[in-house]
């Protein structure tokens, strides 16, 4: 133990500022380029102060609709300012893991994306028919130069943990060739499996807020999850009752029932 302490002090004198200790936060310049996430609480904990560019970022979540895309939206909107293109590889079956309805088909909603500041004219959406096809599309996208971001839902490309690791490792290596933001969204059950991604986030909801657990990051691990308020402030406390909603029916209910206004009026 004494020897270790001595070695450390020796290294400190020899290496000076270029020495980095594993229990320290790495210097921001050592993290490579990053892009601010738009959430100060999260940026404070992300090495380099934002999403690492040219690195694979893994987001693990089981429930769609807890704010997983809202988390990415500010960064994607920043990329839109630089006129960079993006590719979204959508889920194969978009399962929302609802017990009574296992498959809910969803599609990114253009008006909301435009409101969030994304550049739809420079975004390509891919709807793969198999997980393998989705993996292929993410891989192809990461090969492209000048790409801003790739957002890919990858349920499980191979079915085995080992195969998944290899696939992710390939993606990670491809991501390092360029400066794109490479987000892959995977089910939370992969949280325990090894992953080559440098940043792994487990997303869960905490009350009305989004709880982000940094499973893996450069440097000292973060034990406490970060809690982010993604929703408008007035949503936090607001509560309406279905009964209080006005029950007013449209001007002519016959019109509604027949769905044929001209016939209804003429009759």
């Amino acid at each position, binding site marked *: 133990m004494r020897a270790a302490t001595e070695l450390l002090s020796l290294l400190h004198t020899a290496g000076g500022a270029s020495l980095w200790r594993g229990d320290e936060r790495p210097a921001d310049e050592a993290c490579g380029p990053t892009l601010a996430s738009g959430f100060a609480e999260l940026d404070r904990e992300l090495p380099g102060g934002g999403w690492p560019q040219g690195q694979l970022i893994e987001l693990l979540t089981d429930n769609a609709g807890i704010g997983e895309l809202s988390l990415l939206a500010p960064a994607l909107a920043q990329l839109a300012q630089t006129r960079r293109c993006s590719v979204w590889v959508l889920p194969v079956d978009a399962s929302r893991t609802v017990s009574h309805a296992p498959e809910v088909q969803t599609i990114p909603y253009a008006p909301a994306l435009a409101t969030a500041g994304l550049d739809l004219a420079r975004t390509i959406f891919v709807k793969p028919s198999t997980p393998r096809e989705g993996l292929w599309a993410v891989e192809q996208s990461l090969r*492209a130069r000048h790409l801003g971001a790739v957002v890919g839902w990858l349920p499980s490309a191979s079915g085995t943990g080992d195969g998944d690791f290899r696939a992710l490792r390939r993606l990670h290596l491809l991501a390092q*060739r*360029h400066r794109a933001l490479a987000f892959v969204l995977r089910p939370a059950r992969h949280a325990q499996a090894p992953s080559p991604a440098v940043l792994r986030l487990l997303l869960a909801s905490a*009350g009305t807020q989004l709880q982000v657990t940094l499973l893996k990051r450069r440097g000292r691990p973060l034990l406490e999850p970060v809690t982010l308020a993604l929703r408008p402030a007035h949503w936090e406390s607001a509560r309406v009752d279905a009964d209080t909603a006005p029950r007013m029916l449209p001007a002519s209910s016959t019109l509604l029932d027949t769905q044929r206004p001209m016939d209804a009026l003429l009759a």
Partner: protein
Amino acid sequence: MALWLAIVLPALPLQLAERALPGMGQLAIVEGPPLRLVVLHCNAPAQAAGVAPGMKVAAAQALARELIALERNVEREQAALAELAGWAYQFSSHVVLQPDGLLLETGGSERLFGDRARLHRAVTTGLGTLGYRAAFAYAEAPRCARVFALAEAGQGRHVASPGLPPLAEADSLQRLPIELLEWDAVTNETLRALGLSAIGDLLRLPRDAFARRFGTGRLDDLDRALGVRSDPQPLYVPPAHFSARIELPADISETAQLMFPARRLLASLEGFLRGRNAGATELVFSATHSARRGTALAPTAITLALAAPERDAQRLAALLGERLARVQLPAPALTLALTVERLHAFSALNASLLPPSAHDGDVGVDWLQLAETLHARLGSERVFQLQAVDDHRPERAWCALPIAVGDAPRTVPPSATSAPRPLLLLPTPQPLPAHGEQPLDRGPLTLVTGPERIECGWWDLAGPAAGSRARAVHRDYFVARNAHGQWLWIYRELAAPRGWFLHGLFA
């Protein structure tokens, strides 16, 4: 100075068959009346088995068991030459079709390519990519160049002649045999019988006597070969669209095998587009099949759609490779054709629209290529762009569009509302169970905000678009949260039975 390059393709029918597929076995081109077919050309493996031109087909097949005998098709040869002329148009605007080759006036375009040697290299390597072997000769007079190219082809110097052939002098015509003038056999025989075997012998004859004996046409022809008489040539006019075809000497049942002939077609297309300074955005490959059990099969069409005009054969071949992964041939293919109906102005935009930044490596494809690769492999239903549409009905406020890179930026209509909209939408709303007035989704839902009443679309009901999709909307929308922390966008129908539906996720 006018300078003519004569290109002669010896044994053209055989070359056409050999360029279609790699590693063909014994192959012979036969010609003649039915039941008396005679071998016209045969390839090296057939020759090794003892087959020789002039042999009867039956005899040849007895010598070479594996021999594929293909009947000569003159129309097909003419079409191939016309296609080649379209390809050669990139080197010169003066292209002349010949019975088994081309004439190009290259004096005017040497400077464009640097010098004559570079131009020649471009022509020879290009022909090699197309799968042709050719003999070449340069001369100031087109007729002279043609005679010398035929002489080269006759001496078998068409296999490998990468060097630039020297400019042929009209004087050296003298020692060439008279057959190279391509006069009819009777005339050649008469001349031979008179002891006139070289062109020089003809030139030494008195001109008026020669004209009386053999006609002024022959005399004029000699003068043209010497370059002392003007020799206007009927110039080739390139067609408005590209169309090329390769007949496959052997049946092909695997789509991957189509890549080889397809590369030939794409190389031809690239030359054609270069000559027209154009690019293509839609390529249609079509493979024809033999009739199965008496019923004709429709040809298989393979369409390659591109985001921006393109002509690079290698890039197109890479895209086609991805596209072919989705194609199944219903029966073996007999021919493969490529047509491009519309040509587009091509700007040499093979780099990105963005200046390369210092952080990006030079490795990797351009994103435009990426779009095309994805599209080629997955098709337009699976690769698309999204656009917001100005409509109050949430399910009609968006649309999916085919990729259109390079168009003017799309105008996004001003958002009609400041009300919350989810990032993920369910294209078909999903009914939610309810307990009394309380909607349920894995437990009771907490309604966070709302209602936002959306009630419109009645105008579509009477219009011509009235159909399954055109529906009036009478709904109260709420933002809701379930026990799992999911933020949902739900609505309640205003009409009876006032059911609840899930329409989106605030992802």
